[in-house]
């Protein structure tokens, strides 16, 4: 299976290990990822300029369309934004026209058919939990782990359609096959605080802290993320004094699944 790999901006500089582990995981699952010169998904521009945000996304779609590929991304933000943009494109005729003109200038186009899928939904829907389970040959130790559903994949459900927005399951199901045991906690669907890290760091960290405390109350050893931004936020643990007191480590889903599938360590970091 061929898919266009949409890494998203941050992964390249901030989270190389997610990049590598994701790629080697896909390789293991027999998916060959095509690297295209994608630009920003448009999420950052969403709060500054609506048009820009949609156009950025559509331009990526058009690029994928050029090679007749569907897109997969490991980042929940990018996933959500691309979904959102596609929705706007279909809804808003005037907008669509303008976008089409702009694309035409670079002689590319988009017919709205390109599908966008996130790592998790891909594994859950296209590969299937049972399929994966068969492939697992290195069961991991029974560590307690809590899940971090990124906001933008989960909400608004009416646009992303990722999973039940109030009681999502797929992440748990996917983790539990690796051997790790997910534990219930109150804040699994809540925001990690990353979106305002740049502008309002103190608040961002407060939110992060509240999540860590809740995770500890639930008795977890790890927090599992499947989103670039969430992981970057949790990596704050190692930088911020007030976070270091929490004895809990964030892990990338790609790494634990990769490990469970027996991918070598160096190909995961």
């Amino acid at each position, binding site marked *: 299976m061929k898919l266009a790999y949409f890494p998203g*901006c*941050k992964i*390249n*500089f*901030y989270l190389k290990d997610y990049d590598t582990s994701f790629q080697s995981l896909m390789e293991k699952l027999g998916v060959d990822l095509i690297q295209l*010169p994608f*630009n*920003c998904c*448009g999420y*950052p*521009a*969403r*709060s*500054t*300029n*609506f*048009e*820009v945000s949609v*156009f*950025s996304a559509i*331009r990526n779609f058009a690029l994928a369309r050029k090679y007749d590929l569907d897109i997969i991304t490991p980042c929940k933000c990018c996933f959500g934004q691309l979904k959102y943009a596609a929705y*706007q494109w279909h*809804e*808003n005729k*005037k*907008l669509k026209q*303008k976008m089409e003109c*702009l694309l035409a*200038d670079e002689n590319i186009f988009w017919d709205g058919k390109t599908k966008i899928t996130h790592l998790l939904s891909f594994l859950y829907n296209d590969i299937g939990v049972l399929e994966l389970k068969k492939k697992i040959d290195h069961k991991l130790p029974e560590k307690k782990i809590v899940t971090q559903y990124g*906001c*933008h994949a*989960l*909400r*608004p*459900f009416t646009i992303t359609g990722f999973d039940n*927005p*109030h009681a999502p399951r797929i992440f748990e199901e996917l983790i539990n096959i690796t051997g790790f045991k997910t534990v219930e906690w109150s804040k699994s669907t*809540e*925001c990690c*605080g990353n*979106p*305002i890290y740049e*502008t*309002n760091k*103190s*608040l961002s960290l*407060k*939110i992060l802290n*509240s999540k860590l405390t809740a995770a500890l109350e639930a008795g977890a050893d790890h927090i599992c993320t499947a989103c670039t931004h969430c992981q970057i936020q949790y*990596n*704050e643990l190692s*930088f911020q004094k007030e976070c270091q007191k929490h004895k809990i480590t964030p892990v990338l889903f790609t790494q634990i699944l990769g490990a469970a599938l027996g991918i070598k360590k160096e190909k995961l970091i």
Partner: protein
Amino acid sequence: MFQISLYTALGLSIAGLLFRIYRFQKKGSSGTLKLKLSLNLKPAFFNTIFQSKLFYASKTRWAVHFLVFSGFIYLVFFHALDEWIAFNLFQSYQPTLDPFQFLRDFAGFLVLIGCSGFLLRRILNTWINPDNTTNYKGLFPIILILLVMGSGFMLETIKIISEPVFLEMVEDYSDIDEDTDLDHLKIYWETHYQVRFKKDILITEEALEHGRRLNTDYCLDCHSKIKSAFISKALATQLDKPANFLNYYRADNWLYPIHYLLSFLMLVSLPFSRFFHILLIPFASAQQKMTVRHFQEKAVSIHPATFSACTNCGLCSAVCSVYPNFLITGNKQILPHFKIESARKMMAVAHLNPKKLNQLQLGNDDCTLCHHCTDICPSGIDLQGIWQTLPQTLHKMGYPDNYTFVKDTALQERENKEWEKEQADRAYDLTQNLTGRVYSFENCVQCTVCTNVCPVVAYGGNDNDMTPQQIMNLLRLGKKQTAAGTRMVWNCLTCYMCQEHCPSEIKVADIIIELRNISNQTTDSLKIMGAADKADK
């Protein structure tokens, strides 16, 4: 004459160099951009000698660039500085002997091709080029090189055809005194070395034969046949007619100073023109690149010299993640190779045009720190490092980011501004215009569920002012701008909790995000107005 000009040139050039360094240091001491000593030499070496980064970035460009580079280096060592280097390396060295005679021409030839390549590209794709000033700056060195090469080849050609030069050589290197011998040698050189003589001498077989013998005796061991100097030879054949005239006026004598003066001009302009990148790129590439940890610890510092290493090749802009932003907003200051230019100017002269600075601030805000520009930059500049430090500098200079700007302006100021009208008139038809249509928020039943699920409300503490549902009320009360300026709107995580939980299914988050859009536009126009005022003063 030669000596004087050489030493003045050297002096000037060194003085200039020192001056630049001094300036850099002074700037360096100013705040965020400190001098950084931690160097990593390996990339510096490869990037300097083989231009490795350029090679990865664009093969063709690398090829062209490397022609010039290699040819030029050869000429410097085996032509300009031959007395110090060439002669000492090879005892047998003679500029007029092969292979050196051939190589010199060949090197010159490479440089010529390379430079014409530069010119060609500049003419072909103009969009990638910055504004005219830098365009000219880019052209200056190329022209200069071409002139130097041109003059060089001309000089060689003239020497070839020149009778006086021939006679001088005869004087210096042979003991021929009989006119017949001299004539025979002349005949031989006229036919084989393309010297042009005033009065024709009739050519006979044995005269030529005798000439050849004389040539082997006296000349050959330190003057190869000129066919190896293929370019000059070609030129010489062209100069058949004016030859006598040129020889009469000893063109070689006045062409020679032109040649070396031009070369000295190059030397002088080294610190002040694009030539400088020859020294700066190694330096920039040697600078340690920023890592995530650096930013976490806010230990970011870029040496100002690296700004000047940029050659405006524009490769960064081609891979910039937010290129689409530029396509829609048209703000050039989004693109890296424009940004660094203005940033460099800003560093150089603190009082840059406020409008420009404002644009720069707005443009730089769009950067998503994807590191593509740094990855590709052939000069090895840590561009992302610069983008990441720029906001602090701009803030110091009175150009804060929108978040801070809004935080510091009282909400009342935002209401009833003249621009508000035009903004109201500007149809939001491309957006959903949720804030403009009553039905999108009038169904609120004041149940405060959105407020209850909002993490910002929960943890914002004293940083909160309005709650999501109060924002809906503000809209109902027709206070769009006030709403747009609230902390709520600007602290919003866009986590969509409110929207997902709203029993009346109001698009709370979408509305808040749209408000932040409006607020951003408002802020931009406020800033632009402010910048304009500054500019007037």
